[in-house]
């Protein structure tokens, strides 16, 4: 077993620098690497290019980096929950690349799996297609989308072991799985870190080969964005 465990988030992020590109897991506030984000705020890492499906809310998730103006460029598919994001975008303070959600996931997965680019139909004929190569396959048009190149992938999982293997819970899996191994170095934070051998190999979702450092996270808030219930009849 190759041991990927580091003691804490500070050790995990010791070589993070200004100007880097980060791929960050999560969908809305679900499955976000809370400890890593808090540490990036604490370190005041600046001029970040951030690739993540959403930008958090004003006071949680990636919104915390936005508030401190640490993000130079955001690549995301939906930023509607964050008023500060919309403001920085419309004012031109921050560069934004809005990308279809499926394309974003596949550009991460392409990086994870060593493809330089993928042909995707989504966005053809829209502003997303501007400036991109296109091609017809069987009478349908596709855009050539490049795999992401990032310095770090930051992912969050439910359980992990010291070999870096990850198990996700529910819809907190989302982008974390295709993002592990997409960046040059992948750092995983988990709610529960166990010794190698405790996780059933049949149950593991992401093999530890895609993870360079893993640490036990703490104090997860796991905020709910839209608490929605139904009435008992």
């Amino acid at each position, binding site marked *: 077993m190759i041991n990927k465990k580091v003691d804490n988030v500070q050790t995990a992020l010791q070589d993070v620098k200004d100007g880097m590109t980060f791929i960050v897991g999560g969908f809305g506030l679900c499955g976000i690497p809370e400890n890593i984000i808090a540490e990036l705020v604490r370190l005041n890492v600046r001029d970040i290019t951030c690739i993540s499906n959403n930008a958090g809310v004003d006071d949680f998730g990636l919104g915390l980096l936005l508030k401190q103006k640490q993000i130079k460029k955001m690549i995301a598919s939906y930023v509607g929950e964050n008023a500060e994001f919309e403001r920085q975008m419309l004012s031109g303070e921050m560069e934004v690349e809005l990308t279809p959600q499926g394309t974003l996931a596949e550009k991460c997965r392409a990086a994870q799996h060593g493809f330089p680019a993928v042909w995707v139909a989504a966005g053809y*004929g829209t502003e997303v297609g501007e400036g991109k190569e296109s091609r017809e396959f069987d009478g349908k048009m596709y855009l050539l989308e490049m795999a992401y190149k990032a310095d770090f992938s930051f992912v969050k999982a439910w359980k992990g072991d010291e070999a870096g293997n990850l198990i996700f819970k529910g819809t907190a899996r989302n982008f974390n799985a295709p993002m592990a191994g997409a960046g040059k170095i992948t750092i995983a934070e988990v709610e529960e870190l166990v010794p190698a051998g405790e996780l059933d190999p049949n149950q593991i979702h992401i093999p530890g080969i895609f993870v360079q450092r893993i640490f036990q996270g703490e104090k997860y808030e796991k905020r709910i964005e*839209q608490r929605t*219930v139904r009435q008992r009849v």
Partner: protein
Amino acid sequence: MLSKEQIAQRIAKELKDKFYVNLGIGIPTLVANYIPQGIEVEFQSENGILGMGPFPFEGEEDPDLINAGKQTITTMPGAVFFDSAMSFGMIRGKHVDLTILGAMEVDQNGAIASWKIPGKLVKGMGGAMDLVASAENIIVAMMHTNKQGESKVLKNCSLPLTGVNCVKKVVTNLCVMELVDGKFHLLERAPGISVEEIQAATEADLVIEGEIPEMVF
């Protein structure tokens, strides 16, 4: 004219047995409340769940169990979780049978505009572009006119596009239409709505053949 609930109810009649269905945010989510008797469908939520269930009871909300609109949900028996790449693989690979989504505008070339009002509403497209580019069956659920009373069924969309060559069936608060060979064909009227009212609200070319029936619920 129809309420949002009634638009959803009419669209639900298009669900076929054993369909996998993706519901967009807004009016489409209401379709889940009107599944016709005797058919089985499974709802896919693009953030990574098949077999999406209803909202939980109070006190049973799980932060790790949400839908694409970031609302807390539950699961049905037989549900499964998967990642976002696989989720869009299902959509792109045409394994999802039917997509229902809202729109700001549709046009007779088959284009949909649903995600951006330049300078005002730039929240992002989410999964909409993937869905309209890939789905075999798409139903658009929307109001026939906007808040200013202008037609949303156009010759050419004025707003930034979500996709091209993707509109087929459209259900509005006034009618059901189908796009065939570059023209909208009027199929059904909302109860109490006349053909003339629908024509007046439609900027696109609208084909009216024979007696147009009222919707049946």
